[in-house]
């Protein structure tokens, strides 16, 4: 299968320069002044409401509306161009700094304008992404774990054999698709990925120099951060509007580069937390122990099994805070598996783990794939990448600069340039990297 060109979405063409300017200063000052101005104007307009509570309430209401309208509608919409249209493509328009949805005024306007926008958008998108992702939404029970199909290394590589080793190439059976995902912090473009597909049932390594945007991409894909532009789909379903805490229920779980062990809980409790759909997690049902005790026991057994597999069983009842750095990495990975995910995203899972244990972890990761899970992991150790990954994606300065089987990566000129700077002409011996 050959790669086709990624569909063009023109709505993406945001006036970047103007935006940066607005984003840093003007925007903020304008909000401040708009706030005051609105208030003062209002005082003139409804001057005789003074001294009454009604006056105050109306004043406040008017203030909120004016500010929201001014800020959200005029300034940001102007700055972000066709954002109303993007929204209906499943691209949520969010505050670039906070990742929160924009306020009241915009929401109202958006809802009013969206019928127009949909028509415009259909023309714009044609048969591209819209049909593939939005048009074929699979309504599925979010709580049901997707069935895993067991596989092995040979099958995984075979599936990828026909895929062209170019950035943004199409995979035969993608579990995760990112389209036009970008994220800017102030003026810095941390991530700007045109198109990326992750093949189901294989181990994909995500590599790149420090600051390439790997962690940011993880955040975007798992909804921990909201993209400035772009859309993403999991199992053929858009997950743009899915908040981070629901992602796990879809069968996608991630770990963090800076380990997040829950220090003042025991290792076992850490593990048990990972199980989804627990009956005792509701406040009322929690009060009736019989409702959840059986399930809790099951979960505990599963947790013990995993702990044993990760060599943590002797620490079972200790506080997680007492674990060593490497052990915490293990715990976090084991905890993620408690979710029973179909896609595991590991952010530098092996950093700080001793070589012997690393080897056994590698086997675990391979084992996960063989059970049918899809694994994406970030790693700087090229030996390890060569050893276990079936596919490698290379990022630099926010972009995907290369993709391909592990063997093809080390002599890719773009990758060499990214790691060592341009004008370096020898092939990169990435294997010595660690």
């Amino acid at each position: 299968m050959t790669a086709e060109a990624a569909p063009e979405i023109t709505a993406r063409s945001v006036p970047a320069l103007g935006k940066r300017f607005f984003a840093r200063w003007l925007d903020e000052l304008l909000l401040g002044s708009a706030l005051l101005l609105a208030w003062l104007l209002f005082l003139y307009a409804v001057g005789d409401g003074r001294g009454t509570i009604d006056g105050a309430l109306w004043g406040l209401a008017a203030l909120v509306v004016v500010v929201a309208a001014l800020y959200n509608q005029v300034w940001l919409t102007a700055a972000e161009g066709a954002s109303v249209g993007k929204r209906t493509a499943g691209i949520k328009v969010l505050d670039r700094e906070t990742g929160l949805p924009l306020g009241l005024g915009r929401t109202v306007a958006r809802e009013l304008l969206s019928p127009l926008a949909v028509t415009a958008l259909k023309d714009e998108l044609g048969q591209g992404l819209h049909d593939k992702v939005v048009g074929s939404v699979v309504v599925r029970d979010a709580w049901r774990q997707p069935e895993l199909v067991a596989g092995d290394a040979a099958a995984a590589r075979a599936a990828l054999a026909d895929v062209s080793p170019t950035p943004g190439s199409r995979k035969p059976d993608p579990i995760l698709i990112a389209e036009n995902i970008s994220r800017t912090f102030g003026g810095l473009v941390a991530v700007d990925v045109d198109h990326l597909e992750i093949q189901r049932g294989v181990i994909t390594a995500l590599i790149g120099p420090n600051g390439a945007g790997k962690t940011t991409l993880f955040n975007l894909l798992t909804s921990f951060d909201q993209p400035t532009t772009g859309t993403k789909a999991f199992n053929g379903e858009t997950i743009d509007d899915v908040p981070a805490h629901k992602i796990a229920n879809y069968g996608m779980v991630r770990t963090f580069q800076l380990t997040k062990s829950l220090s003042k809980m025991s290792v076992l409790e850490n593990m048990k937390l990972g199980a989804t759909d627990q009956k005792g997690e509701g406040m009322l049902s929690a009060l009736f122990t019989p409702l959840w005790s059986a399930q809790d026991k099951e979960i505990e057994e599963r947790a013990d099994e995993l702990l044993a597999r990760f060599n943590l069983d002797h620490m079972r009842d200790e506080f997680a805070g007492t674990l060593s750095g490497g052990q915490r990495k293990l715990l976090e990975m084991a905890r993620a598996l408690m979710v029973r995910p179909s896609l595991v995203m590991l952010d530098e899972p092996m950093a700080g783990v001793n070589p012997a244990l690393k080897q056994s972890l590698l086997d675990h990761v391979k084992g996960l794939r063989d059970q049918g899970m899809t694994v994406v992991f970030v790693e700087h150790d090229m030996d390890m990448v060569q050893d276990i990954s079936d596919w490698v994606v290379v990022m630099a300065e926010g972009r995907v600069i290369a993709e391909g089987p592990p063997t093809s990566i080390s002599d890719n000129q773009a990758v060499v340039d990214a790691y060592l700077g341009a004008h370096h002409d020898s092939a990169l011996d990435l294997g010595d990297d660690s």
Partner: protein
Amino acid sequence: MDWGGILDNTLRGLIGEQFIYFALAAIGLNIHFGYAGLLNFGQAVFMAAGAYGLSIMVVTYDWSFWAGVGMGLIVFPAVLALILGVPTLRLRADYLAIVTIATAEMFRLIARSPRYDWLTGSSDGHGGFATRFYELSPFDPGERYFFGLFIGNQFFVVLVGWAALVVVVTLVWALIRSPWGRVLKAIREDEDAARSLGKNAYFYKMQALMLGGMIGALGGMLRAIGTQSAQPQNFITDVTFFAWVALILGGAGKIMGPVVGAALLYGLINFTDGLLRQLVEEGFISESVMDGTQVGQVRFLLIGVGLVALAALRPQGLFGNKEEMALDDR
């Protein structure tokens, strides 16, 4: 020196009404801070929600006592938690701290404003809403009970308070040992980790804010019943700080922490208060150093000192485990 009087006072502090009000407030805070990691510095306004919820319904709207209790225990604190939580629970913990302390102050300003006299009775507040409660008392208002520590009505309040304490502590214990409590603790430790494992941190925090607020409201309501008045100055910000001291004294994140803390706090306060008063009266402390009215101020001062010393030197509480606290260094 009247040592007997001082002793009586101290005992009353250890088990009496003040202890009960603040133990409940501190249990609420324990849910907020000790288990969910929420920085609520407006527990006073939750207490006020309980007190005014009852008094407004009964005095202003002529509802029955029990309907008022329902409003003050459930509806008022729940609405308040929504108002406080919706804008802040998605943000960093400091924001909740600022918004809660501001709201508590805001409430006090509104409650004592003559403009809302019709609703809240302004600075005099409300009284006479607890008649129904005292009608139920089996004790003779004129008699003294429990080694002469409490008069009849007081004793009734104390007994009801203790019963409420037992129920609340059991409830909290049951909740915390359940998977619900596990999620809450996980959110306290690291919200992002909890979210990555599929827990809706915002929702749980809101639940915790409500539950802790309702327990605080129970404390505030009992206080209003016990003093037979709901007044703005009973819910100043320092009241929140008292509850915090009780919590930190006993140890946050422990079921019995706030209860022990509140008992110790009021035992100590009443003891120093009584002692100082005696010393002033007997002339051991001269009028130029301190007079009667200033004794009350010294109590606050000591609370400040205690809070500083505790939080700086023993952040785990008097009985807490230092090792466990050290796990906090992230």
